[in-house]
């Protein structure tokens, strides 16, 4: 309130004027309430009441091995996707900080392409490339390798998902890396550290907040991915999102599908809160 540009007199009229812009929030918040809040509340409601009130749907979810397997596969797929995205994204983001203006623009453009290339189009393209007689296996065959089963395997799903989620890793990493003071590296070198040690002990820790933010975003997005695993994966290796789809759309089991949805949502929000907490704690530590 003290940040209001002209020192506002504490009259009623001024206070109304300070509040009036809040009305501009109303249409968007109303749309969100009706078409986002109500649907989500409906899912929780159905999970707890369909077919009868109680926790039966959650008991069913956590006692059936098939569900727990799907939950486990969802976690491992998200974890591999995150690890691969970090392995590819870290050097890529580092290169962005080392490139000249033109090189950086090119690298940024390349990593942004996924944002405006349709998910459906890219999943379809991967289906073409990964099919057993596809381009990848033709290339492997030409050098005497393969054939490699990619489509309908978890590997194929991860390869495609990393491609789609890489921007979420690279952009926060770059944002943090660009702010790292490189003179600290020179300082470490002048104190006798080898280049590799200086990089690992000075640069990597300073870039960790970016890596953590990127990893969290990729992991959360991977947990809820539907189209790519549904089209590239095998039905036997289905993930939680596919199970939810089947329960609701195929079996009309709204309560069970809803319970799975609540589990997925709870995992997402739980991880986000952990991430926010970690960020808060590390921020406090740095500024004691």
């Amino acid at each position, binding site marked *: 309130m003290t940040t*209001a*540009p002209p020192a506002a007199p504490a009259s009623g009229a001024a206070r109304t004027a*300070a*509040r*009036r*812009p809040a009305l*501009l*929030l109303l*249409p*968007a*918040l109303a*749309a*969100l309430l009706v*078409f*986002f*809040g*109500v*649907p*989500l509340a*409906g*899912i929780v409601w159905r999970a707890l009441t369909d077919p009868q009130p109680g926790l039966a749907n959650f008991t069913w979810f956590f006692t059936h091995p098939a569900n727990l397997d799907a939950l486990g596969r969802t976690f491992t797929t998200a974890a591999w996707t995150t690890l691969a995205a970090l392995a*590819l994204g870290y050097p*890529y983001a*580092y*290169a962005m900080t080392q490139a000249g203006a033109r090189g950086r623009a*090119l*690298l940024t453009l*390349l*990593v942004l392409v996924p*944002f*405006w*290339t*349709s*998910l*459906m*189009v*890219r999943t*379809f*393209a*991967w*289906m*073409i*490339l990964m*099919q057993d007689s*596809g*381009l990848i296996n033709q290339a492997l065959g030409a050098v005497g390798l393969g054939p490699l089963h990619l489509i309908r395997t978890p590997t194929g799903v991860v390869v495609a998902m990393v*491609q789609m989620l890489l921007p979420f890793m690279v952009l926060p990493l770059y944002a943090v890396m660009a702010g790292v003071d490189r003179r600290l590296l020179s300082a470490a070198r002048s104190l006798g550290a080898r280049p590799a040690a200086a990089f690992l002990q000075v640069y990597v820790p300073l870039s960790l907040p970016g890596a953590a933010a990127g990893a969290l975003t990729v992991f959360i997005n991977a947990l*809820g991915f*539907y*189209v790519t695993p549904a089209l590239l994966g095998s039905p036997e290796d289905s993930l939680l999102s596919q199970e*939810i*789809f089947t329960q*609701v*759309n195929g079996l009309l089991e*709204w309560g069970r*599908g809803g319970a799975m*949805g609540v589990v*997925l*949502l709870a995992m*997402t929000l739980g991880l986000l809160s952990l991430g926010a907490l970690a960020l808060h704690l590390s921020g406090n530590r740095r500024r004691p």
Partner: protein
Amino acid sequence: MTAAPADTTTAARPPARPDRARLRLLPLWAFCALVGAWLVLPALVVVPLSFTDKASLAFPPTGWSTRWYANFFTDPQWSRSLLDSLTVALAVTATATVLGTAAALGLTRARIGGLPLAQGALLAPVIVPGVVVAIGMYGLFLQLRLTGTFFGFLMAHTVLALPFVVIPVTAALRGFDTRYEQAAAVMGAGRLTAFRTVTLPMIAPGVAAGALFAFVTSFDEVVVSLFVQSPYLRTLPVQMYSSVTRDTDPTIAAAATLIICTTTALVTAAALLMSRRSHAG
């Protein structure tokens, strides 16, 4: 005699140093080139495939034809889904841009409690997994009889697109000096006139970026659309999804190529527009 070569190496060392530093980064550049190719090239496989002459998705094609494009534009299912996608996306762009810009103004100008909460709510659609939103909306839309309606698609996509408008417009407004608006007011401009003639032109790049994101969000959306569609109204990605799970029809490659061309043209136009604006400013 033996000292001479040693001398030349020490003399040559200082200028050689930047070269060696650049050489050390060579593997890094090669790595980036590979990652860049992996990001961009796979999607382009649909372009040659769309010109195949056979009714199969075998790659590379052995003969060429434009029959799948002819099929796309004559088959009512495909051509109508493109039309539906475009009308929905344009309506979503207009709605989400207006609602999102207004909300961003509220977020940056209002001095009330609870703003972080409102901001969190506005960004929530990015965080919640698509499938969960999809079954929730499906349940609601079944009750309200909104499945397969234009209004249903419009509101579902608008909610998903809102964060992508709010984020860039809020950023643009935080960089905007409100004294320009006060100056306009001093000279007699009403609130609306001041906003239209002073604020809006200055935050235009942010609004344009938001509008573009909103269009692309709607045009590309699959998961929620799969649930709210009906045979009477389905968007292009939904048509592609059901086609790819049902048969091996290269029309889908033609559709994919058309989508790539549309979004590439849009993004290039937006980038050109913005760079011209920033040069003029």
